[in-house]
């Protein structure tokens, strides 16, 4: 589930509010999104893909954590913005789709591409 909106990184662009399929976010008084409906989060990682400054973190577990993870630790492990990087979104990156040639599932067959 969505666990973190980084106050330090967020530029209050409202993208995550717009793109979240389950309408988890609302705009906070200071412009930073708040997780009004966290329990509706479907752990789809789409908000992370769209955040231009890697300010969001979606934990892969589909239930809320007792305590949000530590932002500095996540940043140190390279996990803030890692999904956006892997799909090659963001200036100067190669779209992940262009590189998406996977293994073939039956060894002799064609490679998987998604």
């Amino acid at each position: 589930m969505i666990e973190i909106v980084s106050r330090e990184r967020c530029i209050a662009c409202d993208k995550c509010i717009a793109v979240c399929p389950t309408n988890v976010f609302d705009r906070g008084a200071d412009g930073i999104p708040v997780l009004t409906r966290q329990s509706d989060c479907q752990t789809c990682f789409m908000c992370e893909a769209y955040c231009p400054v890697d300010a969001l973190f979606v934990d892969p577990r589909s239930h809320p954590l007792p305590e949000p993870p530590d932002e500095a630790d996540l940043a140190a492990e390279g996990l803030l913005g890692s999904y956006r990087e892997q799909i090659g979104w963001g200036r100067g990156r190669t779209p992940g789709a262009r590189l998406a040639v996977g293994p073939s599932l039956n060894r002799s067959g064609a490679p998987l591409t998604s």
Partner: protein
Amino acid sequence: MTINEIDADVLVAGGGPAGAWAAVKAAEAGASVVLADKGYLGTSGATASAGTGVWYVEPRPEAREAAMASREGLGGYLADREWMARVLDQTYANMNELAEVSRYPFPVDDDGRQIRRGLQGPEYMRRMRVRVRRAGVRVLDHSPVTELLADGSGAVAGAAGYRLRDEHPFRVTARAVVLATGGCAFLSKALGCDVNTGDGALFAAEAGAELSGMEFSNAYAIAPAFTSVTKTAFYSFATFYHADGSVLEGAGSQRGRSVIARTLLTEPVLCRIDKATPEEQRAMRLAQPNFFLPFDRQGIDPFTDLFPVTLLAEGTVRGTGGIRITGPDCATTVPGLYAAGDAATRELICGGFTGGGSHNSAWAMSSGTWAGRGAARHAAELGGRATGRPVRALGEAGVRPAGPATGGHAEYVRAVQAEVLPYDKNLLRHADRLVPALDALDRTWRELAGTLRGEGAGLVRARSAAAMTAHARWMYSAALARTETRGMHKRQDLPEQDPSQRRRLVTGGLHEVWTRPETAALAVAS
């Protein structure tokens, strides 16, 4: 309260691939089009977050023949060759449009040719949003449809819904409606599927349409335990284990899923992706970055560590049941109403099984294309005759209960989930468990239809609860009516395929659910 009133030739409900293609093709055919999505066109639905392999086959007769033959047995011989051939043609055309019109960045092979057999979800649907908007379609995000409108003759004449961000209702009067609201995964939190609560099927049934193949509704997908990521292809490189480290015999991603389910009823199942070479491991990361999110973010190395897995219900998302299609333009039995993608039945191209992908995405783009064009043609034929016709709203359970209204949608959702999520009820089917489950669902329906009404955003949740309850009842009614094992519908009490039941089952009704064979048994394939 302000109500947004909009008029259009065609309303498309749902903005996954099926709805997006429907909107583009209706607009290209000259219709004025509104697309309303519960979430956001571009991120919402199963495809956007999951990504899909696509049934893209070069138009060489041997290749097409092999593609059609490959799945007929698995699907229980309920598919139709003519529809398969049409879908292969249309999918080929649409994928080429994605390359040429949307400039989708397909990977290239060693000869520099694009490989067009798969689509990364975020990239695909972001580009579809651009194309939909360039086509002049008016897009309403965060605007779930909550019911259909009909004219005096019963023809569908638009829809009503609720704008979640602006917090007010909206109404679109339209000459034709395409339902592309996806399948139903019962809020199981499978990847990208919580928006898919079967709403379209409920709306269709309220308008008098029929469903087909609802017994093929027990898709379950492997995910690392406690996570949402139901990407399953790479489990064909996996071995499954008991907690003590001994191998779980017979367990597998494709055919051994019921072994996993049976084991999970009493003990954990562990997994390790230990059959991939280092080169294959690297390639996996490129093909499906989302597959690795649960591992990378929990410090698991899936190639060397054992990790627990679960099975998440995907219901009719990767099942094949849905609204019954009655013509090549994806019309339904109701004038003015069209269905596409997972909201519609996919039996026509894959019978009772879809399993490892490709057909669903091909169906979504093909049926979306046809439904969009069909709806535009219907709108043009109606022309000025539809202007200003009186309309009435068709919604019942969750919006206009039979008796005094109360809330409580969450309890209804829990009651439905208790009957459809457990493996021993839905996946490992047996009359001894299906009959009481259906009884419980019927009781839930009666109570819900009698009393439930939501207001504002609560209306959307109440309608989703009603839709899931109706879906579950159609599923189990059809599952009991198909007294054999065929496709993904596996009856433990009736494990054989019965040649006299080689025909599709049609289901419908809200207060009284009914099921009937569509035709006499189809002749055995030559």
